[in-house]
């Protein structure tokens, strides 16, 4: 036997799907690309710079933290890149660098790594990062820059040159702020295409939809959460006599539906749970929008549902196993 070469021995199965964690995370990055490109088109190079800062600081914090604790390095799984991109998409383009870094710290170190790293976080890191920033820097988080391209869009929307804002960094109001103040709203087409102001990755529902459909088609995410979330938002809007398309395209609903609420770790694992979760997110989002003057409806709604996820899982798993046992009994 000694003449024989020793071979690799491992338990079955001896083949596996090619997709690993990094594979899925890279696909999510790819799906965010349309929104990123649109952000650069509207807000210029500072949108690119803000995303770069966010991604680099997220990956950097993850790398430093794992190294400091002597844990296996996990930056290779691309999850920090995803967090960085989603965080950037949910921020105004002109946010100062140190604030973005603060958000990244809250996302990666506080929310993710202090709880054990990927798969262990109780809430979506990017969501917490954005929420922390919102409560820390309320003014800056609501100051949306008006770039030359943005002013051009606004001129066109107004039907001709009016009192125009020439300089950068003059704040423009988002549709939701206009909605709260009962002002004239942009048209649904403008909202859908992204010819509006807002957080840099949230303005174009179309760009987010392209990425979201890609993720569903490639089976990276299940369509249950995005569908139940968006349909609930529209249904509630309709019920209260608002324009459902406006509420679907305004603010971060599309970003949240496809990229935040579908986060594997913080959403339920069974289809039935996902349905409950999506409907819950939709109901809470609309509740906060209609009944509070508070502009962070989506973040709050989703953090609430993140916290409920273990309970939803427990309930749906119990039902599933009970049914299975019944089906397989003599």
């Amino acid at each position, binding site marked *: *036997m000694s003449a*024989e*070469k*020793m*071979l*690799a*021995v*491992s*338990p*079955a*199965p*001896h*083949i*596996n*799907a090619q*997709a*690993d*964690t990094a*594979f*899925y995370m890279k696909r999510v990055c790819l799906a965010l690309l349309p929104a990123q490109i649109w952000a650069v088109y509207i807000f210029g190079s500072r949108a690119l710079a803000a995303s770069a800062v966010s991604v680099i600081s997220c990956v950097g914090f993850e790398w430093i933290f794992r190294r400091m604790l002597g844990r296996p390095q*996990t930056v290779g*799984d691309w*999850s920090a890149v995803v967090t960085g991109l989603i965080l950037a998409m949910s921020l105004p383009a002109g946010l100062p660098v140190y604030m973005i870094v603060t958000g990244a710290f809250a996302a990666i170190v506080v929310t993710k790594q202090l709880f*054990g*790293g*990927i*798969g*262990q976080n109780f809430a979506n890191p990017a969501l917490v990062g954005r929420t922390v920033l919102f409560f820390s820097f309320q003014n800056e988080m609501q100051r949306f820059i008006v770039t030359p391209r943005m002013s051009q869009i606004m001129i066109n929307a107004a039907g001709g040159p009016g009192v125009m804002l020439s300089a950068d960094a003059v704040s423009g109001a988002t549709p939701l702020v206009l909605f709260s103040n009962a002002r004239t709203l942009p048209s649904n087409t403008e909202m859908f295409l992204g010819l509006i102001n807002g957080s840099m990755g949230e303005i174009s529902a179309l760009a987010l939809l392209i990425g979201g459909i890609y993720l569903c088609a490639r089976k990276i995410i*299940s369509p*249950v959460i995005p569908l139940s979330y968006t349909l609930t938002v529209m249904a509630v809007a309709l019920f209260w006599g608002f324009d459902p398309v406006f509420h679907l395209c305004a603010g971060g609903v599309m970003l949240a539906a496809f990229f935040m609420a579908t986060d*594997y*770790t913080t959403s339920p*694992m*069974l*289809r*039935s749970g996902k*349905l409950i979760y999506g409907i819950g997110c939709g109901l809470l989002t609309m509740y906060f929008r209609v009944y509070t003057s508070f502009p962070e409806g989506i973040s709050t709604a989703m953090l609430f549902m993140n916290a409920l996820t273990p309970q939803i899982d427990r309930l749906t*798993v119990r039902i*599933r*196993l009970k049914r*299975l*046992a019944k*089906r*397989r*009994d*003599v």
Partner: protein
Amino acid sequence: MLLSSAKKGIYLKSHKATRQMSVMPLTLPAEVRIPMTHGRAASCRPLVKAGDKVGVGQLIGEAEGPFAVPVHSSVSGTVTGIEELPSRLGMNDLHVVIKTDGRQSSAEDLRPPVIGSREEFLRAVRDSGLVGLGGEGFPTALKLDSAGQAIDSLLLNGAECEPFVTSDHRNMVAYARELVQGAAALMRYLSIRETLIGVQADKQDALDLIAAQCEGMDSINAAPLSRIFPAGEETLLIRELRGTELPLGGRPADKNILVLNVSTVIKLEQYLVTGMPLVSRTVTVDGDVIARPMNVEVPIGTAMGEVLRFCGADEGSLRKLIAGGPMTGTALPDTGFYTTKTDNALICFSAYRAERDRETACINCGRCIDSCPEGLLPGLLFKAWRERDEKALRDGLLSACSGCGCCSYVCPARKQISFELGLAKQFLMKKESENAEGGSDER
């Protein structure tokens, strides 16, 4: 549909390069070492000694007890000794060493069995030396016997859902008649009313040939199976062909069903007609280090190295040798083993395919849940096992896990879920027997 877990099992790239190739006989080896243990059968006592002359099909290993299955010589020649060599299970096993004389003359006393009753039929099945040839390796006579008298439906498993493997497929194509005749014999002697031959839909040629043989027989039919892995797993096969659920931890016999592999039935029919017991079997040899992938008819007890060389294996770059298919087969530590009755395939991978990535953290993606053909929650069971949480393992219906490997296959964190769930099953069984011994009625 949104609510039900519609998709069960997984779709695998089939890699069946040998699907169109007829079975080639192996060049007769100069020497065979025939193991006395095959599959899950108990070990046999060698009946021959050095110097004895043997013919093909001669009884050389006597079965003692119901769990053993007799072993026959696969060659004609001279016994040169009895050696203790490592077996698949990591233990040693007796091997009868026979130097071949090249004539392959049959043993003198071979004649078809005379069968008049159920008992004589079971006796004949036992004498044929058959174990489940699909890789399961359970003694066929014992399976038929323990199924009892109430069996009314026979399911023949021709799913062959493992990638690469085509030995059942080629046997069905070459011996469709024997397959249907064998089914008829089983039905006659075991008073079974109907037979369904399940074949995965990608093997249309086999389905057509079997259907042609079934013509005029109302009670034997061929049925296409879905393309998923593991369509041939017992609970899935029964679900798909009979539309009924096996009880948890139950056997097909609980539903009056008997499941047999198609190649087993073909070999049984050949024994009933010719009296030649199981002395060789079809082995699919494939993988990225095999120059000429093919199906080979291999005498039981042939050195694996010999089979691999016959198919042009590049032994220098061989890094993994799998006895059986890549989803459920066993990786062998070296090529120094001898073929048994259960080796339906030898799959050879180079380093490129042999290496596995390091395990990373579970991201809760739920793919294991979507893939589980039993509808279990493998990720949760896995966590419960790592925490040695007995209650969670039981509540999670661990006993329903068939170890098919779908969850390990899809896991992006590269966790060996199904393997560890196998360990968890042993853990639970041990705990249960401890509780029983302690006389406690704690559940």
